[in-house]
């Protein structure tokens, strides 16, 4: 999908994007297209997100606003990445879906783009590593026909580009390294180069590598999740493809401290925090509700892990360990572990319920 020629981009992206000659389609997911583009001329005068908006901002949440981009072609470019080091930016374009009712379509794409920006900013503030939000734009797509008097609009979210690979790629590459195969939990990993259609025997199945590096990654995933949940953010679509590793080392290194970055907050939601200043005692019901939301979030990750990476049970356990052992300096001692226990208990229930979906004809 990714390397489609320009003529096959369907639907055609907004003119503002195509006017950038370096535009490259990174992926076309179900919900959005991710573009990589290079800025023509970085604006040397702007040095932070706050100052690039030229006055125009979009309010995406309580006391959270993001610069709004009106025209991409305007010069000097209103976007500047980081400290001006990199000119590459990611644009996540939520394009209109023909199948959806126009009213539903606009309301979903708009609220998801805003919601994603909000969650990213909130994560940043809470110290959860995620890409920097640069700007939001709302542009009509090229050659879009009007439906119900509304012209189809794409919502674009501009973000910092993260250099590195996804955890999924990392684990898969690891599994393919011959030197590491002997460390794998299951023997007989003599998998010849097999493409999708070749026959293979069950014992040739690639087993996920469990070693110090991957365990460290899993543990860090858990710790960051804990921080994110403590900040009241639910990711909603946790998979190993949605967690990136910044510049992973080529060789195993005992001192490696994995720099993870959580991406794709498209389905993220927020819950009211359990410990807001002054308001201590939350109702029992509210706490239960929060534990449920968090447990479902974890359950989604567990399922993604197990279905994508055969034999990764130990990694999942390590994620939970990282999650439970997290310590938050801002909370009174013991409070977090209480919450984590409640979430883990709830996770057991969610698993049971998940399995119960064995359903009727």
């Amino acid at each position: 999908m990714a390397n489609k020629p320009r003529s096959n981009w369907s639907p055609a992206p907004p003119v503002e994007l195509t006017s950038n000659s370096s535009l490259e389609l990174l992926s076309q997911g179900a919900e959005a297209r991710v573009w990589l583009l290079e800025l023509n001329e970085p604006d040397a005068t702007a040095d932070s997100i706050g100052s690039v908006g030229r006055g125009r901002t979009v309010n995406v949440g309580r006391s959270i606003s993001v610069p709004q981009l009106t025209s991409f072609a305007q010069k000097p470019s209103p976007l500047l990445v980081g400290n001006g080091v990199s000119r590459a930016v990611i644009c996540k374009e939520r394009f209109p879906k023909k199948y959806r009712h126009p009213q539903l379509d606009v309301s979903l794409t708009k609220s998801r783009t805003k919601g994603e920006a909000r969650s990213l900013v909130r994560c940043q503030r809470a110290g959860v590593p995620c890409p920097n939000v640069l700007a939001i734009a709302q542009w009509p797509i090229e050659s879009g026909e009007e439906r119900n008097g509304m012209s189809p609009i794409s919502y674009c979210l501009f973000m910092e580009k993260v250099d590195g690979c996804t955890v999924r790629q990392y684990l898969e590459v690891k599994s393919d390294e011959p030197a590491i195969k002997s460390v794998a939990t299951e023997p007989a990993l003599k998998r010849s180069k097999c493409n999708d259609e070749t026959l293979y025997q069950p014992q040739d199945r690639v087993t996920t590598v469990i070693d110090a590096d991957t365990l460290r990654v899993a543990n860090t995933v858990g710790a960051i999740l804990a921080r994110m949940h403590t900040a009241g953010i639910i990711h909603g679509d946790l998979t190993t493809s949605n967690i990136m590793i910044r510049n992973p080392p080529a060789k195993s290194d005992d001192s490696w401290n994995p720099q993870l970055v959580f991406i794709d907050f498209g389905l993220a939601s927020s819950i009211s925090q359990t410990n807001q200043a002054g308001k201590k005692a939350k109702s029992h019901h509210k706490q239960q509700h929060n534990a449920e939301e968090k447990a479902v979030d974890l359950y989604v990750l567990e399922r993604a892990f197990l279905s994508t990476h055969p034999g990764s049970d130990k990694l999942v356990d390590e994620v939970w360990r990282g999650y439970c052992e997290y310590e938050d300096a801002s909370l009174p001692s013991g409070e977090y572990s209480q919450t984590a226990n409640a979430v883990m208990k709830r996770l057991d229930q969610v698993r049971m319920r998940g399995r119960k979906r064995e359903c009727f004809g």
Partner: protein
Amino acid sequence: MSKDAPNKAATATEPACPVSPLGNLAIPPPSHYKPNSDGNTVVLGIEGSANKCGVGILCYNPKDETYQTLSNPRKTYVSPKGCGFLPKETAWHHQAHVVALVRAALDEAYPGEPSPERYLSGIAFTLGPGMGGPLKSCAMAARTLSLIWKLPLIAVNHCIAHIEMGRVATSASDPVVLYVSGGNTQVIAYSDGRYRIFGETIDIAVGNCLDRFARVVGLSNDPSPGYNIELEARKHTAENQLKFVELPYVVKGMDVSFSGLLTFIEDMTKKKTFVGDGPRENDDQLTTADLCYSLQETIFAMLIEITERTMAHCGQNSVLIVGGVGCNKRLQGMMADMVVDRGGTLCAMDHRYCIDNGAMIAQAGIFGLQYGSNDMVVEMKDTECTQRFRTDAVEAIWRKRTRGKHS
């Protein structure tokens, strides 16, 4: 059956389906079952997991390598308006009709033949998932026939039957399957020997949601509540637009949830602004048609979204919709829109795999028999039905063990 059978409408008119486009493994030579005197392998399938009782006869012809449905009669238990079908009454219905259906099926497949059972190689029945009483009634019939005619029993997973009949009928080798019915909502793709569930409902099924809403607003169960909702929603035209109300839209990862939405829309019908069949006097008011239209638009958009996510995740391009809700024209239209935008193909809808029937049970059963599946060709003691039976619990041994594209 009497000789006046030819006057009855044929229940199977489809042409034979070739085996080759399916990309299955080669069919092993028959060792543990007997092809009939024509050299064909014929399986009789009995379905009765929900309110439909069906018997189908399916024939494999080794000469031209095709599967053909010889007959496929069916009876549906329609419950009174405002009431769903209850297990006990549905079981009575199936018990009352299954013998006549077997007779009708055999008579249509082999007209005028005094002992048509001699052509059969096996009896397939639905082991689950489904409602206990109806399942047991049909399994009892299958066991009895197997003992009388000394034929092997093949226990079939209902969901697999939908998928396999869909693949055979549309010649789709490896589609992403959206299985939507009164009891199931799953997005399924084949990976590593099994049909894996990538997304599903975390509470009630989509058909259940539609049926219950139909009951609340008093739509008839004849021919099906979902169809009557579709008819209401079709009142939306370019000239006469229905009102679209926003309803809770719940997609969690690849899963969906309908229970909150159902409660929400049920509450709307209790408000003063709800005027039933209408007409609307002002813009605040809502009619049954408005709600049906909004309900369909919302829940189908959720289904398409999780299907699209699965396609993107697995890198697959063709989609097959199976199950009763798959008959809905609006769902098909929306799916086609999505699939075309992705440059893929949507397999045509067909009653053979959308509505529960006996032939689809026979289709999955014949695969199990031909490939000697230990999961499916069962001893008498292992024929106890199960209400809960996951799609990924059965190994699809007739398919190539490919490494999953997602893994």
